[in-house]
């Protein structure tokens, strides 16, 4: 029989203490998150109503809803992903399927790493220099397209990284089997690799929806105004090139720091909506991943 010596008992206790210590470290990061997010939602949820979501702001944001900001955010997310998703996916295809290991590929990879680390405000400055003034879409003024392009450059490295991961999950032997029967690289990519990694690729792109929706600093320099209403009857009346727009993230900044006579619950409500977007997008990504994992073909 196994007897529990004092030595073993001590060791077990030691193990439990270690687990508690590191568990505390993790909990100290995660629990405040729940408390804070819970607090914000509790404060903000009562102020969210159908009218709040679907009405234009009034009186400089003090009254009315956030409809214009929702539409603006939608515009920015849509146009920025419309640029970054195809470019990012193709870039990942190049890096994962075509590039051989040499100095040039190393430089491209370094550029991706570097691009991912550029601070968002510097992306904003780049957007001002490149899209507002140099490309000059809107006569030297900010525009939705400039903001969207700025965010597209910003999300590009993340989409490249997630797509590369999805592509490399397709076993190499499939590619070799196809090369052996005389298929070209592109035929293999188009018929085998992409169809079998599309779920991973889409998950990566979906996650960027919440990132682009939440970005503030770069878009406030390049395309987002603090107060730019939609026609009260109109649904999609921003012009992507000629207009600036409102955005949820910028609206929260403006309401929380600059606007006057705002009811206390309003910024909490906007923050709740933003957190809601993050939760929904991440939940969708997780659900998507689980669903497609169940349909895996090998």
């Amino acid at each position: 029989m196994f007897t529990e010596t004092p030595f073993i008992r001590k060791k077990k206790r030691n193990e439990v203490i270690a687990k508690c210590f590191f568990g505390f470290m993790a909990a100290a990061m995660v629990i405040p998150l729940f408390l804070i997010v819970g607090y914000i939602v509790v404060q903000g949820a009562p102020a969210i109503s159908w009218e709040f979501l679907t009405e234009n702001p009034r009186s400089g944001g003090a009254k009315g809803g956030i409809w214009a900001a929702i539409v603006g955010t939608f515009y920015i997310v849509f146009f920025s992903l419309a640029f970054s998703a195809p470019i990012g996916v193709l870039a990942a295809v190049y890096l994962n399927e075509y590039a051989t290991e040499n100095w040039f590929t190393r430089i491209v990879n370094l550029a991706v790493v570097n691009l991912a680390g550029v601070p968002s405000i510097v992306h904003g400055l780049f957007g001002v220099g490149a899209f507002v003034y140099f490309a000059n879409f809107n006569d030297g003024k900010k525009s939705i397209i400039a903001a969207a392009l700025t965010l597209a450059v910003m999300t590009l490295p993340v989409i490249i990284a997630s797509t590369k991961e999805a592509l490399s999950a397709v076993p190499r032997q499939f590619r070799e089997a196809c090369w052996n029967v005389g298929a070209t690289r592109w035929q293999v990519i188009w018929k085998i690799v992409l169809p079998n990694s599309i779920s991973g690729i889409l998950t990566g792109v979906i996650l960027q929806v919440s990132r682009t929706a939440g970005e503030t600093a770069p878009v406030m320099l390049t395309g987002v105004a603090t107060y730019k209403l939609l026609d009260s009857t109109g649904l999609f009346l921003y012009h992507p090139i000629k207009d600036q727009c409102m955005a949820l993230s910028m609206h929260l900044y403006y309401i929380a720091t600059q606007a006057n006579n705002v009811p206390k619950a309003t910024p909490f409500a906007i923050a709740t909506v933003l957190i809601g977007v993050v939760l929904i997008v991440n939940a969708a990504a997780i659900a998507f991943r689980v669903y497609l994992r169940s349909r895996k073909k090998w």
Partner: protein
Amino acid sequence: MTKKIQVENLRTFYGTKEVHHGISFDIEQNEIFAIIGPAQSGKTTLLRAINRTLEFTPGTKMTGTIKVDGEDVQKTRDVYGLRRKIGMVAPLPVGLPLTIYDNVAFAPRSSGINDKGFLDAHVEKCLRQSALWDEVKDRLDSLGTKLSGGQQQRLTIARALSHQPEILCLDEFSIAIDPVTTMRIEDVLKELKKEMTIILVTNLVQQARRLAARTMFLWNGDIIELDRNEVMFSDNTKDKRTYEYVNGIFG
């Protein structure tokens, strides 16, 4: 007899590591040519050099010449045509994540054949040739990856036959399948010999003895001996190592 493949002074490299140290041999039309030898002696690399898929592995290099039908593979203008001329069966069965039908139709479609009538007949022919048709004819639209290992290996052979190759290379095809299936495939190979040249890489000495007309013993990137089977599997081999390997004394 015409020479189907001529290899002259072939040297291959992975990075700085030299795999083949300048080997030369010929393979004749419509023979079954066996290559035996211990692991790591360069058998798979040799096959990949012949159909030029070696270049998909970064850092590989080859010198010397390999001619298929008298044409230097390094200088061919249509490398995809060259690869279609050679059917390749890898050691582990690879069912592509497509339906069984699409697995076999993949190669003809890649080369631009989309005629439904031709494809239907062709898929059936290839599956019959690889002795798989009877087992799968009712479920051609189920996934190739969901077949059993032995079935997948025959599917791999069907795919290798689907582009009507003139040369069929089998790289230790029986490593992952049961003896019964192995015997069935061996029977198939004896049939196929009438239509094409077969290169059989195997670590089963007896398989080479059963099937091949000539056998080459490759060891550490050198040809130790290459001769007719009557010589290779007799007591009179030119090199003592051949005798020892064939009789299981080393390797």
